[in-house]
């Protein structure tokens, strides 16, 4: 039996977009104010889970053909790798660098290596959350 989910589908199309924007905002507001890779990743993962709920797994998989276990692993590699990079540069482990740049549109912007670390954390969170949800749903 196919349930009538027109409202769900329509709302999802808009809401997913809002959630994704929020997650990007949270991600970039990180390291000095509340937010960061973990929360950003969690919100982004919730958007993906919402898409899985409204459409079926195959449809979403066509759009995002990733193995989320590998996404998580790649995230851990990036996060630990940024920590390890400071060892290669001869600094204490996990030392972060930051610099200020004047970009044409954004004005004065700060570039920080911690963003890479946060990106790793975000990927790990997305990978783990989606993997958990998918393995629970496979259980039937």
């Amino acid at each position, binding site marked *: 039996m196919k349930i009538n989910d027109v409202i769900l589908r329509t709302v999802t199309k808009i809401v997913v977009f809002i959630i994704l924007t929020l997650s990007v905002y949270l991600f970039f507001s990180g390291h000095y104010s509340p937010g960061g890779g973990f929360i950003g990743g969690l919100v982004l993962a919730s958007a993906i889970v919402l898409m899985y709920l409204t459409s079926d797994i195959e449809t979403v998989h066509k759009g995002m053909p990733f193995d989320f276990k590998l996404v998580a692993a790649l995230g851990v590699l990036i996060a630990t790798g940024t920590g390890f990079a400071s*060892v290669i540069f001869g600094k204490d*482990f996990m030392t972060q660098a930051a610099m200020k740049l004047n970009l044409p549109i954004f004005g004065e912007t700060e570039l920080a290596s911690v963003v890479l670390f946060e990106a790793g954390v975000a990927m790990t969170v997305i990978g783990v959350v989606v993997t958990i949800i998918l393995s629970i749903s496979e259980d039937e």
Partner: protein
Amino acid sequence: MNNIVVIPLILPIMLGIALVFLRPYVKTQRVISLLTMVAIAVVSVIMLGRIQETGIMRLDFGGWKPPFGILFVADSFAVLLVLTTSIVTAICLLYAFSSIGEKRENMFFYPFVLLLVAGVNGSFLTGDIFNLFVCFEVMLLASYVLITLGGEKAQLRESLKYVLINVLASWFFLVALAYLYGTLGTLNMAHLAERVAEAGQDPILTTIALLFLVVFALKAGLLLFFWLPGSYSVPPTAVAALFGALLTKVGIYALFRMFTLIFIHQPEVTHMLIKGMAAVTIIAGCLGALAYKDIRQIVAYNVVIAVGFVLIGLSVSTEAAFEGAIYYLMHDMIAKAMLFLLAGTMIYLTGETRFDKMSGLIRNYPVFGWMFFVVMVSLAGIPPLSGFVGKVLIGQGLIETGSYVLLALAFISSVVVLYSLLRIFLNAIFGETIISIEDETPLPKRMLTPIVLFAICTIALGFGAEGLSSYVSDAANTLANPSIYIDAVLGGK
């Protein structure tokens, strides 16, 4: 700059994750995981040398000075344990290559072993108590996977208990941490030690100390070991050997750190309690080791006895006892891993789990039989094998403090250990063989080699105790004089 200190944590994590991408290439996974362990062993030997030259090493993550940042502290005690961990894991991996089976190897077995080692090493090296919690969790999560991997019925049944008890213990850990942070306002272990000394460990702090005692007692299997025999007897042999060798030791290490560094001002409460718990643990462990005919249970109860024995060394807190406890910890990691491998191999060869259903294995597998003899003698503490030094030094500590009852108990437990294993030896290894030459399961060389390697380790540790003594006495000295540790962390630089 002491980036070398973080290598035992970061190397297994990064390579373990890299192995996830190499999932189809089982051979490559084996080689990389083995090489990682060897590399960590080499690194820890280098660290031991440096600690002798320049004192305790510390690494401030991201250059944040203590007590504000998270840091790793490498003293001889921690690094000796890291060294033993990597050797034991390397040999267990060798055994796993031939016994663990394609099915598990394809399901990320090697990555999780490396993550387990990362958690264990991190717990040994960290100088921040919240970071200790995190490293504990890394270790436990990996162990949850390893204990359930394979998904057999008994595994799932026991792992449910194992996970529940550990989640509960972790929750207690977190609560204790919150109390500690609420009262003292810091989480750096050296800083905690300083503040506890300034505040004079009033009843509130002692209560928090007791909460930590409960937490780590659950993890170490001190008195609260009811979960241990079940969950250590279900996973495949190589994993059980890793668990038996490493997991309880991390709890013991944490108890040592807490009660030699931070909560040392009320020994008549905390250390007396540890003494009593250790004594009861030994007695209960002995009863368990004698009560069962299932060799997996006997082996698991032998782990419990050793936990009690080492913590007697902590409870008397003299330098000789510390030295003894460190020797005994290292010995026990090697000998217990070997014992688990032997027990697992016996079950593999005969298809039985009760020793009274086996007989005369020494006629079919002579080397194997003598290996069992070696581990039995080593665990009983007969010189020149590795158990001897530790037992003598702990005994010396007990005599110094006049605890003759405990002394008697500790040495009677050695006899019980000997008896419990001798029963297996006489029944299953000696005696008339009931397996004819045609029916015998062949014992592959690749399964026997790791066991022989462990035997070499235990003999080498027995004979080489003299060579290790400068490192062990340095470690014991740091434990007996916490100010050395505190100065190394908080003093300038």
